[in-house]
């Protein structure tokens, strides 16, 4: 007798066992039945099964570790691999915890694991960005992911509101389109005058003009009392 067993009949333990077996088949280049692994994710996400989630973490920690070790930014990240592994899984969990129906957009295990890999990338990349430019991460990242940041004024909600106010003040100080372009390119994108000119050749006659606009604008910026007050409150 060979009757197709419904996935609903499997316990979480049974699914984890089959998922592990099928993953072994994958590494041996055999044909794989990915339904069990996908069902394990479904139980974790839709049924909020902590046991299923723990087994997923156990199953895929090795894979996530390998991804992180092969990431081009990992060597310079100055943090242990486990740190990023934990953050990768935390991001994945938060993304689906906020929106369990997000799972409907995944056709199978492969795209789901792609998403887990994206979480690994995001964990490393944002860590590196944060340490290179401590103030630069946006409110959107903090609020959406809830990833705890190290103490950093611009990374707090208040800090981010301050950043919004700062930018609004900058826009109030600019007098021309050229100054607005330079403000955005220099302050937000960290572009050099040569790069600004290459980006918006239509707005400037040459690089010298870019530098002049930038110097004049920054001089006004440094003297703006309101801007300085917002900055002071940001500390």
């Amino acid at each position: 007798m060979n009757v197709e067993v419904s996935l609903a009949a499997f316990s979480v333990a049974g699914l984890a066992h089959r998922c592990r077996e099928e993953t072994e088949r994958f590494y041996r280049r055999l044909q794989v039945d990915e339904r069990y692994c996908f069902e394990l994710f479904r139980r974790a996400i839709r049924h909020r099964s902590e046991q299923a989630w723990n087994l997923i973490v156990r199953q895929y920690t090795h894979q996530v570790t390998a991804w992180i070790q092969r990431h081009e930014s990992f060597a310079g990240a100055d943090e242990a691999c486990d740190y990023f592994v934990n953050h990768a899984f935390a991001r994945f969990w938060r993304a689906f915890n906020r929106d369990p129906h997000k799972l409907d957009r995944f056709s199978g295990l492969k795209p789901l694991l792609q998403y887990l890999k994206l979480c690994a990338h995001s964990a490393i990349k944002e860590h590196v960005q944060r340490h290179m430019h401590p103030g630069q991460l946006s409110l959107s990242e903090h609020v959406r992911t809830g990833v705890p940041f190290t103490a950093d004024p611009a990374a707090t909600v208040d800090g981010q509101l301050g950043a919004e106010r700062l930018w609004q003040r900058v826009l109030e100080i600019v007098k021309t389109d050229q100054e607005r372009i330079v403000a955005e390119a220099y302050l937000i994108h960290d572009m050099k005058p040569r790069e600004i000119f290459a980006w918006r050749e239509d707005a400037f006659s040459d690089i010298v003009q870019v530098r002049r606009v930038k110097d004049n604008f920054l001089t006004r910026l440094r003297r703006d009392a309101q801007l300085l007050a917002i900055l002071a409150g940001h500390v």
Partner: protein
Amino acid sequence: MDPTERKLKEILFRHFCPTQMDLGEYDLGLLDAPRRDQVASHLQDCVHCQQDLVQIRTFLTQDGPARAPDSVTPSLRERVKVFVVNLLSPPPNVLVSSTFQPALRGQENEMHTQVYQVGPYLVALSFQKNATRLDHAYLLGDISPVDEGGVEFQAWKAHLWQSDSPVATVPLDADGHFTFGSLPITDTPYELILSGPDGEIHLQNLHRP
């Protein structure tokens, strides 16, 4: 650099850029339309995000599907045949027999044995009390084909789980025998998974009778 300028840049750098997750979800086609359009528009002008997107795409396709065949759902015939039985409420005729062998005089080795028919297999399970640790028992097992002949079980393994955690794994011998060493006798049931190249049996809610 002037301190005011430095601080401004620290705070405002990439202030409007989408997150790495948004960039990745954009690439994977997971963003809803309004957010997707916002990101697409931002990407037209932001060199940093353009570079990030390239990095994301490279990373996500690294060690890609070329390593192994695409996962496809195998046909019924090709799949490992899996049988799942909940011993709390087994289907009719699954339990073939249940016997109790009392302890011999002066000994504590009473044994409860139950035999189940699961698909093409007969599985006999015996809990034998541990003479020296009365709150523990051995689990002895035996699997054989219903129709005699042809199956050797040395490639099979027996996996024991409890509360969704693996407890132990033991190999079967060629005759299908296996033994789990001293197991705590608790109210929490076990799950026994007998796993071989051609078949697998999941026995859920296994209790010492």
